[in-house]
């Protein structure tokens, strides 16, 4: 029997009132500093990287920059903080800007442990809409963008994210990108493990670089039990391939030892994942193919991915 609306309302109107009992407001835990003022004691800190007044024509900081560290990153991203910790998070500075027309833009500079971590964090957030970001002096970096709304790029051990709540001219985003990139240390090489990826069939910019399961699990769900034994001492790649008529994903993990790779292979094969086509451990590398791919094609890909010089 379906309950009628009148019955529903009768229950709804029984809600209780609990009197307010206010405590004093909690003090903000973040460190703040005016962008580009040189007031930050660490000249290489993300806060010091943020453009200051007059550095981007037509734009000014609209408030003090805020820096978040490991103990208060939850204040910025709540439960997503662990996803950043998995890439050696150290600190992030957030600056907000306004132009003369009242449009706003937010700049985040994330500092993580290594350039590989910065690449990994970048790869975990990208949409696949790859752009080339001019960073000055004729240099460019790989970026990822939603035109007029968002621009991400990585450099050295930093990930830079620009967000516009209302669409802007791409030139504004580019101007901020150049200002930030020019203040960052140059360079930064992608992880060595990327060189193991076979190029034939690889979907460009589809790779995810990771260390820990939290970074992989939204791409490959293995039940949340860390079947693969991933941790801070493992490097992994998850990349998409289009081979023949099908699409597949290659998982490649570098373990600290051959024993660990063998153990992960055993655990993976025992997990009965439907989409698993082939898996193999060779030395300290584990490779596995998932998806719509023949066993023969999977063997070819695995053989190349696990090859060592």
């Amino acid at each position, binding site marked *: 029997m379906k309950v009628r609306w009148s019955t529903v309302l009768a229950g709804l109107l029984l*809600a209780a009132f609990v009197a307010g009992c206010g405590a004093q407001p909690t003090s903000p835990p973040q460190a703040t500093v005016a962008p580009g003022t040189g007031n930050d004691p660490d000249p290489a800190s993300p806060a010091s990287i943020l453009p200051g007044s007059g550095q981007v024509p037509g734009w000014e900081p609209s408030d003090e920059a805020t820096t978040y560290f490991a103990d208060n990153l*939850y204040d910025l991203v709540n*439960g997503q903080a662990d996803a950043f910790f998995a890439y050696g998070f150290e600190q992030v500075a957030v600056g907000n800007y306004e132009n003369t027309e009242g449009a706003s833009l937010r700049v985040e500079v994330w500092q993580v442990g290594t350039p590989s971590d910065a690449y990994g964090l970048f790869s975990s957030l990208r949409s696949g809409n790859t752009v080339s970001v001019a960073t000055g002096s004729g240099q460019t970096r790989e970026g990822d963008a939603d035109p007029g709304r968002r621009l991400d790029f990585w450099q050295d051990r930093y990930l830079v994210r620009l967000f516009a709540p209302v*669409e802007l001219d791409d030139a504004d985003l580019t101007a901020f990108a150049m200002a930030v990139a020019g203040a960052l240390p140059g360079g930064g090489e992608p992880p060595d493990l990327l060189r193991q990826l076979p190029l034939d069939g690889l979907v460009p910019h589809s790779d995810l670089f990771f260390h820990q399961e939290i970074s992989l699990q939204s791409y490959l769900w293995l039940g949340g039990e860390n079947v693969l034994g991933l941790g801070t001492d493992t490097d992994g790649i998850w990349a998409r391939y289009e081979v023949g008529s099908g699409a597949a994903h290659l998982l490649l993990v570098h373990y600290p030892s051959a024993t660990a790779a063998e153990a992960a292979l055993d655990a993976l094969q025992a997990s009965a994942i439907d989409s698993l086509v082939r898996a193999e451990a060779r030395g300290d590398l584990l490779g596995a193919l998932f998806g719509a791919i023949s066993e023969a094609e999977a063997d070819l890909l695995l053989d190349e991915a696990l090859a060592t010089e």
Partner: protein
Amino acid sequence: MAHWPATDTSRVVLVRHSGVWAGSTPDPAIVLEMLDAGLSTLAETGDVLAIWRALFGPQERVLLKVNCISYGGPTQPAVTYAVAQRLQDAGLPAGNILIFDRTDNELAAAGYSLNEGGIGVQCHGARGTGTESALSQARARFYQELDWCDAIINLPTPKQHGMAGISIALKNHYGSIANPGQLHGNSCDPAIAELNAQPTIRGKTRLVVGAALMVSPTDWNRPEREDALLLSFDPVALDTVGRDILVRHRQEMGQNAGFLVGAAKHLQTAQALNLGATDTGLIELKEVVLG
């Protein structure tokens, strides 16, 4: 809030309108139309204002719990202001309506107009903590605004979540407490369900309106168009329907969606605590397409 198991099934209404986006902002008139149609379908009556009056007394203080932690994909303000408009149309004083999330900065960055003590609908972040509740993993310290209000309208926006799989209505209340960081272990389970079972939330929540004009199936700062509102009296059922929307988006993007289902253990825990229904057979989904 009356829902399964008090009813045979929990109803969730999904309202769509392909013309809701006028450029980069939603059309307020269409959002109001969607809200009216959704509530009318949910309550099985055409007199929308009568529904609002039945749900909320004329002098009650109503907290609209939005979710602005995501800079790029917050609860769309057009949806929240439509709800505030209908509360006023039903006779509630604007000053008794508080649009709330944990910080002023996040509300302002999401496009909300801060107003504390001025004329009109109130809007501000937390000003301190109030009551506490003991959960399995930690004591939850509610913001005092949750104590201040007589009633809550939960206004989440569907998002994937790196630990809990999804963040929709139930997870939205991690922004109602001062110490959410202590409740993220074991995929936030059973903390999410236990938090929502507290009288401060369960006893006051009258309606859930999911702002799904945009949803975030991957990165919170890369929301995708969905052109929909979700309405229910049951946050668990609404979360289940919202999860399925996120799953569809991820599948359309060629991405694995198993994580959204597997990690969202809190839905079954919430059902076990009688907070609502997540089993498919216990949910009645009604779709309304307006344009």
